[in-house]
């Protein structure tokens, strides 16, 4: 308990201090509200529009989680495939790099053409942005399997299925989780950017759509509330993946053990 307090105290105090300075500065220098509202105004906006904001967060959350789930599934599958044979790697890997370099804002309108407006293109946007780190980390993890253990499996004439599921995939897990953690944050970013293009204003508007609306209306305080919610959402997803990683690896991997 005391230890938890001691761990939590520094960031909480830093956060409070930053807000106090911010609050004081906006009053002291009479900064216009549309440029930089004080934290108290942002908090007020957050409570005042809690219903709309939370509904939008839930919509974005659903799309981000869907995109992330596809990233996890297809990313790991692609990584396993790429790591299984050199010729597959040469055939496929360059195009996965393309996923990383393609500007999402440019491809989002295309998604609208194919999938229409709504959650689907947004989820696909989240997927496109978040799948690459999963693939790369899966490939790296699969490649770093202990060669002596591969020898051992050969010595006991293990089937290729046993080699994959009992050796290479578990060996790659720490790497895969590292990729998933990065992907969790990226999926939220992808979803919000996707919403800029592919969602419509209305009851099922996501936070990306809300951000656009509030920006046009110069509701800077609400805009800040949206930014706060978006990063909280990314943090929550990241936290969930970290927890899953901890629960899976704590018994055996150095990265998840107390020292």
């Amino acid at each position, binding site marked *: 308990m005391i230890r938890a307090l001691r761990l939590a105290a520094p960031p909480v105090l830093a956060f409070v201090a930053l807000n106090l300075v911010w609050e004081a500065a906006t009053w002291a220098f009479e900064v216009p509200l549309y440029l930089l509202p004080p934290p108290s105004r942002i908090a007020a906006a957050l409570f005042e529009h809690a219903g709309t904001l939370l509904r939008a967060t839930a919509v974005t959350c659903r799309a981000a989680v869907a995109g992330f789930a596809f990233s996890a599934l297809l990313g790991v599958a692609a990584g396993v495939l790429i790591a299984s044979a050199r010729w597959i790697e040469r055939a496929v890997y360059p195009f996965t790099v393309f996923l990383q370099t393609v500007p999402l804002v440019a491809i989002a309108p295309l998604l609208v053409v194919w999938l229409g407006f709504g959650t689907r293109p947004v989820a696909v946007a989240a997927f496109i942005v978040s799948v690459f780190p999963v693939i790369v980390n899966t490939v790296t993890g699969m490649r770093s399997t*202990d060669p*002596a*253990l591969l*020898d*051992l*499996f*050969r*010595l*006991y*004439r*293990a089937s290729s299925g*046993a080699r994959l599921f*009992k*050796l290479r995939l*578990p060996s790659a*897990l720490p790497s895969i989780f590292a990729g998933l953690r990065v992907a969790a944050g990226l999926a939220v970013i992808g979803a919000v950017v996707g919403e800029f293009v592919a969602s419509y204003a209305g009851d099922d508007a996501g936070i990306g759509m809300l951000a656009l609306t509030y920006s046009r209306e110069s509701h800077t305080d609400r805009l800040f509330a949206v930014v706060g919610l978006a990063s909280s959402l990314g943090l929550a997803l990241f936290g969930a993946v970290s927890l899953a990683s901890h629960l899976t690896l704590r*018994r*055996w*991997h*150095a990265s998840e*053990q107390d020292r």
Partner: protein
Amino acid sequence: MAGGNASDRGHGVAVSLRDVDRVFDGGVAALDGVSFEVAPSEFVAVLGPSGCGKSTLLRLIAGLDRPQGGAVERTPAAGQIACVFQDAHLLPWRRVLANVALPLELAGVPLAERERRARAAVERVGLADAADRYPAQLSGGMRMRVSLARALVTRPELLLLDEPFAALDELTRHRLDEDLHALWRRDRMTVVFVTHSVSEAAFLGRRAVVLTRRPARVASTVTLDLPAEREGTLRSDPAFFAAVRDLRARLEDAEASP
């Protein structure tokens, strides 16, 4: 010589190498015309300087690698060979018992039986209390014991060990050497034990094969005329000192030869 159930292991030759050459892709020659034989139930120590190609030799005997020239023959079938490497190389996500059961699992042995046999193997190496722990919770010596239990669980006819205790402190290493020898006296499998330690080779081997520097050739083969019972007291026996001296001289000659 070998008593007990040695006879049902058959007779003749368990492993035979004839003029074995192994050159790696970069043009580095590891083995150059290596020839020796190992009889069934024999404990042979292969002694050579570090990095002379001893590990390559074991991989060839295990059938994990092929020579460019010469022939490697072994009587035990592929499933009857077990290896212990320089480090324990356990699956870190499995408890001790499941690690030891791995070879049986890969061979398709039913769960209840492999659990029973794995438990017996864990007991044989003196780790009954640690069966439910993860490798990360074990000391280096205990991990090597698990590795040994994993190798023994299939009751292999041929056991290949590649400097298995080299990374351990001396006392732990001595204890493991003694235990390994006791296990061999009980089961009488054929053992090829690779080491760079003169005293370890003298303590364990019935016979020692001394290799030269890379590319390795057989410099000499020597039968160690020591009591069959290799216990800790042997280490202070004059006969043991003499054997160590003799082996060291042979190893020095082998290193000096071009």
